[in-house]
């Protein structure tokens, strides 16, 4: 358990006066479902499932991390949304949020596992240390590896949230003293991986709601990331993309280009190689609440090869450079010359000139043959 949770255990309290209206409830559900790319009828089903209380049981484990992913889930723009999230899922075990402590906490974990065996969703936040048999992260005398393998064995679905749980994140940065690594490496199988530092809570909510409503998981890329959120690079949908295409760049922080909101590529923006939907789904329901929106280059938090590996201000190659370095013509070609038209015009023109020449010969010949008495008397 993280130290802050132990010092300040928080109980998810919901004063009746702050109860959410159905309208706001539906809005949050819709955003989460839309993030997964569900159809409008599926969204209705999700809302129905969430409203009738058939909430998915969620067990949330914390390992080597900063609790930032949990924070981003809770620190939404207005506090009620955090309550909604807690309404949508049955957070049966969460080391940061639960009131229980010590052996009581351990018991609640075992109870939750037993009650929903094979159905609960395991969410892992934080990297798992593997050096020295994983002694760098222990709870109740058990290492992170032991806990993970124990809880994962009976889980219906496993989600690793945040870059740490995905591949190691910041604890795995060189020289990686604890041998920190991600959930899929430890378990040796593919899990739903939602990287990000922090991960966008809507991507997480969408996955959980889809699982709760339909019992399915979204399509994943080869790194286990849902394609609906990680199928495209930041660069492809970046609001500053027009500046990139036009060659308008911020060259250093605070210069004119930076203040005018030009492209941050030359400041080391990792958007061209980073697969994430931050550019279209900003954080905490606040417009432009994401790094590039605030004037900071993307640092590639969803990419194992970029975040905490490549220096933040180092420029990178453009992946899938689009459009190519030549533009299509702005004007479509209009008009044209057809060979048949040329041929017809040529035949008619040639025939006229030829006929004219032949006529002139005839006229000349006829004139020469004219009888002498027909000549004009001059």
């Amino acid at each position, binding site marked *: 358990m993280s130290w802050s949770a132990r010092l300040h255990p928080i109980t998810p309290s919901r004063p009746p006066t702050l109860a959410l209206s159905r309208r706001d409830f539906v809005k949050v559900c819709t955003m989460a479902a839309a993030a997964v790319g569900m159809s409008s009828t599926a969204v209705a089903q999700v809302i129905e499932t969430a409203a009738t209380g058939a909430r998915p049981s969620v067990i949330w484990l914390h390992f080597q991390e900063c609790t930032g992913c949990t924070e981003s889930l809770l620190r939404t723009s207005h506090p009620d949304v955090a309550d909604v999230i807690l309404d949508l899922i049955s957070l049966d075990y969460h080391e940061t949020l639960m009131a229980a402590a010590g052996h009581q906490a351990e018991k609640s974990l075992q109870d939750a596992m037993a009650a929903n065996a094979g159905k609960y969703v395991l969410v892992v936040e934080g990297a798992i240390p593997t050096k020295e048999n994983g002694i760098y992260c222990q709870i109740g005398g058990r290492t992170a590896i032991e806990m993970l393998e124990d809880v994962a064995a009976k889980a219906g679905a496993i989600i690793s949230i945040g870059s740490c749980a995905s591949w190691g994140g910041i604890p795995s940065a060189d020289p990686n003293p604890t041998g920190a690594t991600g959930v899929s490496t430890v378990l040796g199988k593919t899990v739903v991986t939602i990287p990000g530092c922090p991960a966008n809570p809507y991507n997480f909510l969408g996955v959980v709601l889809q699982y709760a409503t339909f019992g399915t998981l979204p399509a994943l890329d080869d790194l286990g990331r849902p394609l609906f959120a990680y199928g495209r690079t930041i660069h492809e949908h970046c609001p500053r993309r027009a500046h990139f295409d036009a060659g308008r760049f911020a060259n250093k922080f605070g210069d004119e280009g930076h203040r005018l909101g030009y492209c941050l590529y030359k400041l080391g923006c990792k958007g061209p190689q980073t697969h994430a939907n931050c550019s279209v789904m900003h954080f905490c329901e606040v417009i432009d609440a994401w790094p590039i929106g605030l004037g900071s280059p993307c640092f590639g938090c969803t990419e194992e090869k970029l975040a905490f590996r490549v220096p933040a201000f180092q420029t990178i190659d453009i992946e899938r450079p689009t459009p190519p370095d030549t533009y299509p013509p702005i004007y479509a070609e209009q008009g044209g010359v057809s060979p048949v038209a040329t041929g017809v015009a040529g035949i008619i023109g040639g025939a006229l000139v030829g006929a004219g020449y032949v006529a002139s010969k005839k006229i000349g*010949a006829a004139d020469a043959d004219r009888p002498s008495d027909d000549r004009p008397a001059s």
Partner: protein
Amino acid sequence: MSAHADVRHAPGPVGGAFFTPGVKIVAVVAGIGALAIVYRLAFGLGAATNLNDGYPWGLWIAFDVVTGTALACGGYAMALLVYILNKGQYHPLVRPALLTSAFGYTIAGVSVVLDVGRYWLLWKVPLYFWHWNLNSVLLEVALCIMAYTMVLWIELSPAFFERGVTAETPWIRRVSERGLPFMKKALVWVIALGLLLPTMHQSSLGSLLLLAGPRLHELWNTPLLPLLFLVSCVGMGYAAVVMEGALASSVLKRRPEREMLAGLGQAILPVLGLYLVLRLGDLVWRGQLGALFAFDLYSVLSLIEIGLFIAAPLMLATERQRADMGNLFRAAMVLVLGGALYRFDVYLVAFNPGAHWSYFPSVGETLVTAGLVSLEVLGYVMIVKYFPILTGRAPEARAPILART
């Protein structure tokens, strides 16, 4: 107009069968053109032509209207010669020249109707005069050409009345008998109009492209454009009369008005001299000689065009050359080609609406133009066979229907 007293020069119908083999061939071309016209009227400009927003004017304007009316300036050029320069001896050439002019202008009018996208609204143009844009050169050209076409047919009307007085239908005879003396009195005013109108619109055809401004290539883009169009159209008018006279006498087996045609060949010389001085002097004055000898597309076309305008007077320089009917015909043809090329150059080649636009007439456009010209030939043959247009006696000489005084 003492020449009229010579009965040899009195006009008379050619007579003979209408459907000769040559006429049949021309009729087939006209029929194909008619089908193309029906297609254009039914399916629209986009389907029938290669016209586009960059080149809204194509073959129908460049050839049928601009070149066609210049060739149809025979009537205008002859009227200048006969009535302004008072060379009455050329009067026998006026009527055939007027006939070709009337057909040329009528064809131009038909082409304009075909070239207007929503042709069914065109009848409003002459009527809704309170909507006229009085600063529009195009309006002036349109009204002038419309008016002049009517003037030409009116100028020609005595020929129809002369035939009408011998008609068997009583009302035609009555109308003709009254019309003939009226026209004799009115003709001087009509002729005055017939001199004014072409002067206006033939120069305006040049002004039209002057309005294109920088889109017109420097080799042709000169304030003298209207004057160059006017002067060259007079030359082309004489050339057309020479060609028509020589061709008609050859095809219809009539004695050519050789001394008159040779005289016209001489009349061409000062006109072409003036044209060349203006054209070359303008290029020198505007410092475009470099462009003239750049040997790109524009330069080559200019050189060919100017070369034709130089070749024609060289072929007509001596009296001996002009007396040779074959040579006279060829010289007129060279001049007509030069004038046509000049107009095509200005209207289609020199005009550059911007990158990515191109134009070449579609098969349909070419067929329509060929059909209209064939129709013109058919009409000409028909009218000269039944109405007193041509002078000179045929081998089986017919007496003139009405000797003019």
